[in-house]
């Protein structure tokens, strides 16, 4: 009987899953993922994690415990550093230890260290070692690692994002306003944690760009805008992607989605707040989520923000769209939300709208 490996669907899962999945597949091992975050999983996490841990950590613990009852081993790699010498948030560094110390009936944890600061081949080495520890021969482990790395490269490397909820609506004709929703992938793309922020904005007719829509090269082009780089992997990506979106005029507004009591985000958020205002003059909204944040409150704030952006954009495009009063538009937009899913139709009728956002869409395409 072969080993069943559990992979928690939280934290680094969102960007690294193609690598892990492919590797275990090549080794011929069975993988079980913990699936979407549910109330049950959150409750488990809240019970075991310390109260002042951030929501993503609590949720991770929930996923890990969910797997504990269903798999032989749980894969919780110790992600130390992957790119550019940046390390992950210290909570990632201590993750396997935290899980081990707080969850009682944990099966063995595979806590392979991934620290690519020391030498570039460390990824390969770590994978091979992992493969061998799972009983594969040197040759097999090596070949699997090579194939997995290649696959990960094709999939998009650290910019990869699994969009398994549903394909992102292209929102071609309904896009009036483009909003950058920046934040860590395990917050923004976990619909439970982010209260479905991205979907919400999209179904309200906005076009959404996230950190994952900005390419690695574009992110790197912002290296020079910081005289001292942030220390953390995801924080650097978030901050620089946001800079890129603002600098190149790709968004009408910026939403920073961050977790309650997140350490690195205290810094990222403040920098974004100040720079969006003083340097880029882009409207900015900070949304803090936690494991029991109410959907309603977040929805109201996002709607108000969107309305403001629409009004602002409208004010500039008055000549082109004389017959549409801003308030009327807001009305119709809210009307549509109630019939979710059909949101695009009404706006599609407004050809004038399309023309006004053409230029923007053009720019947007370069990003996505």
């Amino acid at each position: 009987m072969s080993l069943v490996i559990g992979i928690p669907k939280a934290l680094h899962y969102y960007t690294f899953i193609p690598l892990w999945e492919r590797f275990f597949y090549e080794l011929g091992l069975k993988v079980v993922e913990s699936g979407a975050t549910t109330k049950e999983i959150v409750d488990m996490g809240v019970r075991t994690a310390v109260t002042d841990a951030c929501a993503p950590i609590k949720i991770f613990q929930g996923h890990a415990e969910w797997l504990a009852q269903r798999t032989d081993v749980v894969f919780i790699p110790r992600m130390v550093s992957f790119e550019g010498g940046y390390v992950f948030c210290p909570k990632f560094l201590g993750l396997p230890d935290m899980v081990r110390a707080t969850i009682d009936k944990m099966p063995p944890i595979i806590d392979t260290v991934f620290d690519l600061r020391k030498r570039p081949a460390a990824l390969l080495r770590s994978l091979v070692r992992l493969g061998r520890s799972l009983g594969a021969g040197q040759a097999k482990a090596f070949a699997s690692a090579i194939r997995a790395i290649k696959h990960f490269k094709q999939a998009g490397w650290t910019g990869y994002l699994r969009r398994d909820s549903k394909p992102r609506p292209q929102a071609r004709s309904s896009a009036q306003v483009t909003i950058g929703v920046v934040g860590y992938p395990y917050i923004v793309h976990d619909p439970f944690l982010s209260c479905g922020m991205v979907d919400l904005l999209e179904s309200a007719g906005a076009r959404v760009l996230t950190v994952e829509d900005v390419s690695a090269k574009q992110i790197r082009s912002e290296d020079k805008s910081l005289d001292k780089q942030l220390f953390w992997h995801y924080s650097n990506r978030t901050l620089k992607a946001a800079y890129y979106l603002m600098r190149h005029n790709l968004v009408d507004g910026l939403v920073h989605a961050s977790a309650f009591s997140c350490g690195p985000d205290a810094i990222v958020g403040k920098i974004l707040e100040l720079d969006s205002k003083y340097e880029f003059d882009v409207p900015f909204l900070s949304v803090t989520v936690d494991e029991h944040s109410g959907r309603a409150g977040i929805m109201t704030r996002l709607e108000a923000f969107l309305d403001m952006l629409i009004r602002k954009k409208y004010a500039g495009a008055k000549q082109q769209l004389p017959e549409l009063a801003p308030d009327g538009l807001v009305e119709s937009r809210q009307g549509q939300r109630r019939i979710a899913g059909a949101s695009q139709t009404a706006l599609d009728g407004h050809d004038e709208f399309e023309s006004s956002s053409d230029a923007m869409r053009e720019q947007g395409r370069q990003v996505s």
Partner: protein
Amino acid sequence: MRITFPYMGYYSPVFSNLFRKLGHDVVPPPKPSKRTLDLGTKYAPEFACLPLKILLGTYIETLEMGADAIVSSGGVGPCRAGYYTRLQEKILRSLGYDFTMYTVEPPKGHMMQLLKTLRAFVRVPVTKLFDAIVTTCLKLWYIDEIERLCHKIRPLEVKKGTSTRLMEQAVAEIDKAESYGDVRDVGRAFIKKFNEVEVEDRDPLKVGIIGEIYVVLEPSANFEVIENLNKMGVYAHRSIFLTDWVKENAFLDALRIQPEKEIRSQAKPYLNHAVGGHGENTIGETVRYAKSGYDGVIQLVPFTCIPEIVARSILPRVSRDLGIPVMSLILDEQTGLAGVLTRLEAFVDLLARRRMQSGELPA
């Protein structure tokens, strides 16, 4: 240039003196007060940790008093403290203050930058500089030595208040001493005085103090935890002293001598990787305290401090395995003295009861 720097307990006057010797005007930072914290809380991000807020508040106060240069430490992560000066600079500028920020980066990997920073504000000949630094180091060393003694003697003193008064005198005198020899004489004299303080003959409860460095070192950031424990007749051992920390982190690291990594191996079974700040030490020290017969451990955690949260998640297991009670005190702008005292008393009670059960006489 009118220099200011973060306030840090008894060390502050020594630093003021050093900068004066280097040829600068100094705006000595005032002891952090309610106003300091209020200012910091108002302008810092909500989830910044207490040390950042206190420092930001301190800078605003000193800039108002006419300082135009701030000297503070940097770092290489992963603890946030290494990025503080950048963020604080951004915030202070957005408030309209004009000043220069000097970040002293750790020598490792930043040697050039460190030298550049030093060059920018050293205005005296090298010999004088050397002299000033050596004297300062000696002062810091004596202050640490004497404070250690104070923590030991205060819980047992017969005449209450003697040690605190002696400690304050010692700091004032050491601060005044000019030359290397003077500092040494004053230091020795006070060590002698401390050893002559009349003490009760009993074995007090022993508590180890661990946690994030700023809140451990700065009494006004931790509600004078040590003094308060001492007043309850409990010996509190502080795990961090500035001189030890600088020795390990700056000098030895720069010279590539690996300081004794014993603490790391102590933490090993529970925490297998450095998590920045004092996270690893917190675990390692707890193991060490448990093994050397301490009655309990108190962890000082600034709210949202990442390394300490990692440690805090793991501590309950250490505590269970080694049978040593651990209490975490989470500190933020909403923490109140009354609450802290109540929790300290309850903890001390618990420790006393445990001692009684184990057959020894309670302290």
